[in-house]
């Protein structure tokens, strides 16, 4: 059994792995992110990062979780209908900083954990990378330049 097949077996999925853009992707269906993190721990996969995407218009967000298994880059995508997802910090310590960063940049909530400030200082608002927030700050900057 290949390492990828053993992941599928652990997660109880028959979906095929798709290699695209340098990543081995697996569609997870009903599997939640905590079950995934537990499976990755059991296989001794190395957590790499989470990438947050703000989708166009008001379609919400997508989070992509990446692990490394023997040099193979694995990817799992989670669409977010609401602004929250379960935290994996207690299962995967390596996810601590990236969860905190995404929380501050996109104002997303990782449920089941507390946050210490990472990038932002006291008094700063969450969501500095949100499209609306950046557009608003650019408008302020331009109007200040005009003055």
């Amino acid at each position, binding site marked *: 059994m290949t390492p990828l097949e053993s992941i599928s077996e652990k997660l109880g999925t028959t979906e095929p792995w798709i290699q695209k853009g340098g990543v081995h992707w697996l569609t997870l269906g009903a599997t939640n992110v905590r079950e995934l993190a537990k499976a990755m721990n059991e296989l001794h996969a190395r957590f790499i990062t989470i990438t947050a995407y703000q989708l166009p218009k008001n379609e919400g967000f997508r989070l992509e979780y990446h692990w490394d298994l*023997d040099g193979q880059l694995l990817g799992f995508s989670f669409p977010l209908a609401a602004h929250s997802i379960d935290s994996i910090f207690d299962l995967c310590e390596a996810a601590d*900083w990236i969860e905190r960063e995404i929380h501050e940049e996109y104002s997303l909530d990782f449920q089941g954990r507390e946050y210490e400030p990472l990038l*932002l200082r006291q008094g700063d608002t969450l969501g500095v990378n949100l499209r609306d927030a950046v557009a608003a700050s650019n408008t302020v900057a331009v109007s200040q330049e005009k003055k």
Partner: protein
Amino acid sequence: MSYKIPMGPYHPALEEPYKLDLICEGETVIDAQLHIGFNFRGIEHLAETRNYIQVIALMERVCGICSNIHTLTLCNAMEGLTGLTPPPRAQYIRVIMAELERLHSHVLWAGIAAKLMGFKTMFMTCFELREKVMDVLQAISGNRVNYSMNRIGGVNRDITDPQSILRLVEALELEMGRTVIPIFTTSRTARSRCAGIGVLTTEKAVALGVVGPVARASGLPQDLRRAAPYAAYTEMDFDVPVQPAGDVTARLLVRALEIMESCKILRQALSKLPPGEIATEGEKFVFTTGTATARVEAPRGEVMYSVSWKEGSRNPARVHVRTPTFAVMPAIRWMVKGARLADTPLIQASIDPCYSCTDR
């Protein structure tokens, strides 16, 4: 009774701004809190406003020391979206630049570590060597910091006289083998200052997902040049130095040995440099809709870029950068626990942190 000592964000022991709150009992550190974000520039978002040429120049500025690695990883990802494959000569030149940058980074770090050990003569020696590495980089690229070497589908400048570069590399190797390596590996000053401090156990290194020389100094033999080769690394013969102790000495040894391995790779790449084009000249390309991810072994460890593009768009839809220091820095908290207060500057420097990269 415990008390808190704030170190930073601006402090003589820190090369760049970040804050370490050290909780101490007497002279012993019992815990620490880290604060970053003092260099936060929103580069990832800024990248979404740049076209495919501008974004390379922008991402080169994520880091002042491993600037070439950032453009290499970005170009690898963008090549995944355009279907372009750089010609063999360009792949070799990418290896040469990456290894010269590793030499530059490691020698710079060795100088800073020497300074923090109170070994000023060694600091001067390392910085003199660093100048020579930068001379080689300048001879190839015309620049000393931001080299502007990578482009989609290849590199911007050729190495027209590899033999002259090879002579410079051999001179560097000789000097490093004569001074830096023996002193760092055998000197009693270095050993007494570094041995047994700032220990990161293998188990903790695995749990924290640390990368690069810090992982290898904690007994983890991970190196993307070997595990997931890119550019022309499949054609290079080299060893991956691993040390099990997890202390500052182990990190010192790993980097010292990596300097010699980089020289070995450079000798191979320069002597086997294949003829031909350095870029896919004149080949038209378009970005397809989707996301491509690339990983590269930077001097400090794994760099990962995820680049998303929408076909027909001038700019990327998203560029996410996971830098090595972002993965390694949380380990400082565990390294300084139980350490003497006076050792903390050297311990935090032993991970070779880059806050510019981390904050982005």
